[in-house]
């Protein structure tokens, strides 16, 4: 194979060793209604994968399958296989609580607990028994807040309620809260949709930095955001995966007409 051809192959598919999570023939049903149809999608290690598509296309549903948040919905049923480091997460032997510690989640609307900023971040490490002393816990709280780029803003008010922060600060607090349990993967469900442009810029910058330590999957409605923060993009439509690949290529030279129309804003 020529060098150029190898590069092409790297461009379109992830190397086997770089796969963090892999979804195979994933279908999701809400009662009788099927929301996701045989989706095959890989998530690359230490990169940002963006899921895009019009509302109701199933991208959030797929995201919530990755840490089994759909289990909290009674009528939801998932078929197919999703692996994390080669291990099927829907295997009955898997402890869902442990899985969610490895695959953390940040939600659309900032949802800090009605506790102090410190307690919000310390919540995860506490329930998982990650620390032995108060000093260690303090350290985790500080480093998580630092990684979430909010430490400087809150270090003097750690014991004030987290709900008293601004929307953007709340969202970064939620990210710090997710980081504190040192997950391997962080799922973000439209993390900036409730934020103003300045707060959005800060969170996007943060996502880019976090890529070094975590694997990130982000659902977004903003094409610019997907283009700015992600390395790979997957386009969903009507519950099906339309196209996936390297972000740059997808935004400059999409394979399908549907993706092109969506990206250029002609529908959706």
């Amino acid at each position: 194979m020529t060098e150029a051809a190898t590069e092409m192959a790297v461009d379109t598919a992830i190397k086997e060793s770089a796969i963090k999570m892999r979804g195979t023939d994933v279908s999701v049903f809400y009662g009788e209604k099927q929301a996701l149809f045989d989706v095959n999608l890989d998530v690359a290690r230490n990169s940002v994968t963006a899921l895009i598509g019009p509302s109701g296309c199933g991208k959030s549903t797929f995201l919530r399958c990755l840490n089994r948040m759909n289990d909290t919905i009674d009528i939801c049923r998932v078929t197919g296989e999703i692996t994390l480091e080669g291990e099927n997460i829907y295997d009955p032997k898997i402890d869902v609580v442990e899985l969610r510690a490895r695959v953390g989640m940040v939600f659309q609307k900032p949802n800090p607990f009605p506790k102090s900023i410190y307690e919000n971040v310390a919540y995860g490490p506490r329930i998982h028994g990650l620390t032995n002393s108060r000093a260690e816990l303090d350290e985790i709280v500080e480093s998580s807040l630092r990684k979430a780029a909010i430490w400087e803003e809150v270090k003097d008010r750690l014991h004030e309620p987290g709900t008293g922060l601004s929307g953007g600060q709340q969202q970064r607090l939620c990210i710090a809260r997710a980081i504190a349990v040192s997950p391997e993967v962080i799922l973000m469900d439209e993390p900036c949709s409730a934020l103003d442009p300045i707060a959005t810029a800060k969170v996007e910058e943060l996502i880019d930095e976090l890529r070094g330590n975590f694997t990130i999957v982000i659902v977004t409605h903003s094409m610019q955001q997907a283009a700015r923060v992600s390395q790979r993009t997957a386009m969903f439509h009507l519950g099906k995966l339309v196209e996936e690949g390297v972000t740059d290529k997808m935004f400059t030279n999409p394979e399908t007409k549907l993706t092109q129309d969506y990206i250029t804003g002609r529908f959706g």
Partner: protein
Amino acid sequence: MTPSAIILIVLGLAAIGYVLGRQRALKTAQREGVKLHSLSGYHGQSVALFIAVPALFLLAAWLFLQPVLIESSVSGRIPQSAIPEGGARSLVMFDVRRIAEGLNQIVAGGDVSENDLADMRADVTDVRARLAEVGVALGSDVSPIVLQTAKEYRATDLTASFVRNIAVLVVALGFGAWALARIRPGLRARNISETFIKALLMGSSLVAILTTVGIVGSLLFESISFFNMYPAKEFFLSTTWNPQFRGGSELGILPLLWGTLYVSFVALALAVPLGLMIAIYLAEYAGSRLRSYAKPAIEVLAGIPTIVYGLFALITVGPFLRDWIAQPLGLGSSSSSVMTAGLVMGIMLIPFISSLSDDIINSVPQAMRDGSYGLGATKSETIKQVILPAALPGIVGAFLLAASRAIGETMIVVMGAGASAQLDLNPFEAMTTITVKIVSQLTGDTEFASPETLVAFALGLTLFVFTLGLNILALYIVRKYREQYE
């Protein structure tokens, strides 16, 4: 003419007024060739309101004041000699009212004319037998003076009622004519109706507020006359409750307050943990099918009359506790006890706590749960560390509402806890509460104006202040909680 007939007439006039107002509005608009400011219906409505509301308001006020005024004027005319030894003027007045009523019925029966009635004399006719025929039974023969007063009472009443009827009709017609006469196409009848309706609604809420003020006022008034007869310091600080028929009573509130708080404490100690656990189960664990059956089933408990709970305490719980716990442990041999009343009242309070807490837990946003589950927390960790702290202020509110309900509860305590006022720590002893003593002091045989009776008002006032305080606290906490997620 009876008040109900007058009401019907006024309403009839209002209906006519509506039609006339509408027509007049349409006609004037047509004649002047202008567009009406308001729809013709509003013109009709404002005329109807002007006819009905002031007239009915006058009628209500008159009906309320007339008996009071007549009573005081007639009662003054009874000479002291006509009042029997040891009796009260009010008792004689009671007879007067009954006789006047009986005379009305005799006349209505038709065989005695007004003139015959005027000639009727107590020493000639057997008034008592005559009244018995129309269903008014009297305890003794009617004295001439009482009959005379009754006749006066009746005459005044008839005149006053006649004047009342005229006045009401004049007001209805007067306001109606005025409202009808001022109809112009430019009249803002729509706004007038609006203002009128607002005033009407405000008046309604005023009734509730005034009633509360009245109740508190009468409590306060009677309490003051109690404290004039009995030292307040004794009442609040004495540890003995021992009312006597012939004066020299010791009326210390402390044993009653202790009983009240002890019974409430036992009740809440049962109801709060159980109710809270039910609420958590229903809100977080139970499926929606089970929940839709279980919740109403538990709320049925709240619909059981407290007297039925009382029976349950008296017949089942009391003897059971005595035979199986109190006697074997040597703690007492009474089937009425703080424990009996407390446990039964606790069961009554369960639906209060569980239902309110369930609503509050449900109103904790799903985002809180998702956030916690997303960090790998289990269900019970989420409930303990996120949901309950978030719902706590609301749950405290529910707790306080249940507490004020427990403190004011009467029937269960009467039947379950007994009536002996004592300060004791043993929960298997009979004790009593403020509410029970209010009942027994007011239904006793003692004279009304004695401290033994009036103490009931002081007790009631204390209880009122207590529960009012709890309710205000509960409202404050619940309101504060509501702001948290907005």
